[in-house]
C-alpha cells in the first residue's frame, strides 16, 4: 500500500490485487474503453484554427515590443542600456550615437540608439525592459511575433521596432496611471 498526497487529503490508496475472471477476460474493459472514445467523437473540439480564429488573449498580453516616439514624432529612446541590463534573457543589444545638428525632430535627446536589436528567439516576454525604461520608450504590445523560416529573421531591428509616425501604436493599456505612479518610486526616479 502506498499513500501519497497526505497533505491535500486527496490521497488514493493503491491496492494491487489479483484480477478476477471477468477482469482477466479483457473484453469488458475494452468495451468500456471503446464507449469512452466514441463519446469523444462528437464532442466540441478544442482546436483553434489559427489564422482564421485567434485565441482570446489578455488585455495586458505581452507580445512584440514597440519603441515609442514622443508627441512630436521624435524617438524617446536614449540608448541608456537599462533595458539590456534588466533583460534576463539578454535579448536586447544596442549601439549608442550622438545626435547630429538638425536631427532634433528625429531624436528627443542628444544621445540616441543608432542600432537597437531584440532577438525574439531569446526574448521571454517578461516585460522587465518596459519596467526598467526611464524614458517610457519601450513597451510590449498585444501583437504576436510572426513566424519566420530563418533564425536571423527573428532579430528585430529598429525598422520593425520603432512605431511609424503616422501609425502610432496604442499602449495605454500597459501605461496606466498606476504604472506611471509606480514608476515615480525613488528607486526608479533616476535620469528623468
Amino acid at each position, binding site marked *: 500500500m502506498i499513500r501519497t498526497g497526505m497533505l491535500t487529503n486527496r490521497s488514493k490508496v493503491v491496492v494491487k490485487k489479483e484480477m478476477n475472471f471477468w477482469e482477466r477476460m479483457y473484453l469488458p474493459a475494452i468495451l468500456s*474503453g471503446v464507449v469512452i*472514445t466514441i463519446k*469523444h467523437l462528437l464532442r466540441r473540439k478544442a*482546436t483553434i484554427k489559427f489564422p482564421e480564429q485567434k485565441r482570446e488573449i489578455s488585455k495586458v498580453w505581452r507580445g512584440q515590443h514597440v519603441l515609442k516616439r514622443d508627441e512630436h514624432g521624435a524617438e524617446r529612446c536614449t540608448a541608456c542600456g537599462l533595458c539590456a541590463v534588466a533583460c534576463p534573457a539578454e535579448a536586447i543589444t544596442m549601439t549608442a550615437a550622438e545626435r547630429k545638428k538638425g536631427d532634433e525632430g528625429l531624436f528627443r535627446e542628444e544621445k540616441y540608439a543608432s542600432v537597437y536589436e531584440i532577438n525574439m528567439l531569446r526574448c521571454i516576454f517578461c516585460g522587465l525592459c518596459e519596467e526598467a525604461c526611464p524614458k517610457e520608450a519601450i513597451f510590449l504590445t498585444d501583437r504576436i511575433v510572426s513566424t519566420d523560416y530563418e533564425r536571423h529573421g527573428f532579430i528585430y531591428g529598429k525598422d520593425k521596432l520603432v512605431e511609424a509616425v503616422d501609425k502610432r501604436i496604442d499602449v495605454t493599456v500597459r501605461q496606466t496611471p498606476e504604472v506611471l505612479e509606480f514608476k515615480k518610486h525613488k528607486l526608479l526616479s533616476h535620469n528623468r
Partner: protein
Amino acid sequence: MIAFVTYKMILVLVIFTITLAIAAYSTYAERKVAAFLQDRVGPDRAGPFGIFQPLADGLKFIYKEEIIPNVSNKLLFVFGPCIAMLTALMAGVVVPWGDTVFIGGKEYSLQITDLNIGILYVFGVVSIGVYGIMIGGWSSNNKFSLLGAIRASAQMISYEIAMGLAIIALVLMTGTLSLREITMQQAGGLGGDWNFWNVVYQPLGFLIFIVCAFAECNRTPFDLPECETELVGGYHTEYSSMKLGFYLFAEYINMFISSAVISTLYFGGFNFPFMNNLGLDHNMISIIGTIVLFAKIVFFIFFFMWIRWTIPRFRYDQLMNLGWKIMIPLAIFNIALCALISLYINR
C-alpha cells in the same frame, strides 16, 4: 470470349481503382478519426474539410528523396514493398463485391473469380504478405528493421493459426470454402425467411477472427512490428519516399480486404435485411447490396481505427500468450462446439 475478357478486365480495373481509392482515403479517415476521438479537428487545410489530403500526402511521398542504404541488399530492398503491395492487392480477387446484374439479358457476376477454395486462397495470399515485411526488414541491414521484421513474422504466423481454426468452424457450418456460396447462404435474414448472418451462429468464431485480423494487419493493439516508441519504425525504418508509401499503403489495403472478408464471412456480405420483401427487381437489389457491402466495409475500417485510438499496444510476451495460450485453445474449443452442435442438428 472477347466479351468475357473485356468484362473481367473492366471489373478488375474498377475493383483495383476502388481498392486504391479506399486505401488512400483510409489514410485521411485515420487522421480524421484519430483527431475526432481526441477532440481535435484533424487535417482541414487541403480542400474543404481537407479532402485532398491523400493527394498531398501522395505527392509528398513521390517528391521525397529516395534513399537506398549502401549496406542493404538492393534487389531485395526494392522487392520488399513490391511484395507487400502485390499480395495486398491480390486478395480482393475472390471477394464477392455484389450479386449478379443483368445487362442486355446476360448475367454478369460482380466478383472477379469464384474460386471454390476462396478462403484458402485469401489465406494463401495473406501469408505471402509476411514475406514483404520480412524481406524488407532483413535487407535493410538495420537491427531495428530486423527486429521489427522478426516480430512481424512471428506475430503473423502465430495469429494465422487461430484465424484458420476460427474459419474451420465456419466451414463446418456452411460446408463450403467459396466466399460466394457462404454469402448466398446468408441471404434473406430478417423478414420472410428467418435466416441470420453467420455472426449470430458463430459469435466466438467471429471474435477470434476479428482479433486475429487486427494482428494480421499489424494494427493496434498488435502493431508491434512497427511500434514507433521502441523500434523507430520497425521493418520500414530504412525506407523512404514511395517505397515507404507502398508499405503504409499495403497496410491500409490489407485493412480494407480484411473488412471485406469479415463482412462477407460473418456479416452477410452483400445481403441486407428485408431484401426479398421490398419487391425490387434483381438488378436493383444487387446494386443496393453492393452499396450495403461497402457500408459494412467502411464500418469495419472505422472499427479498426476506433480500436486503434482506444487500446494501448500489447507487450510482446502478452501478444504471444494471447495468441498461443488463449486464441488457439479457444478456436479449437469453438471447432469442437460447432462440430457437436452440427452433429446434433443433422441427426
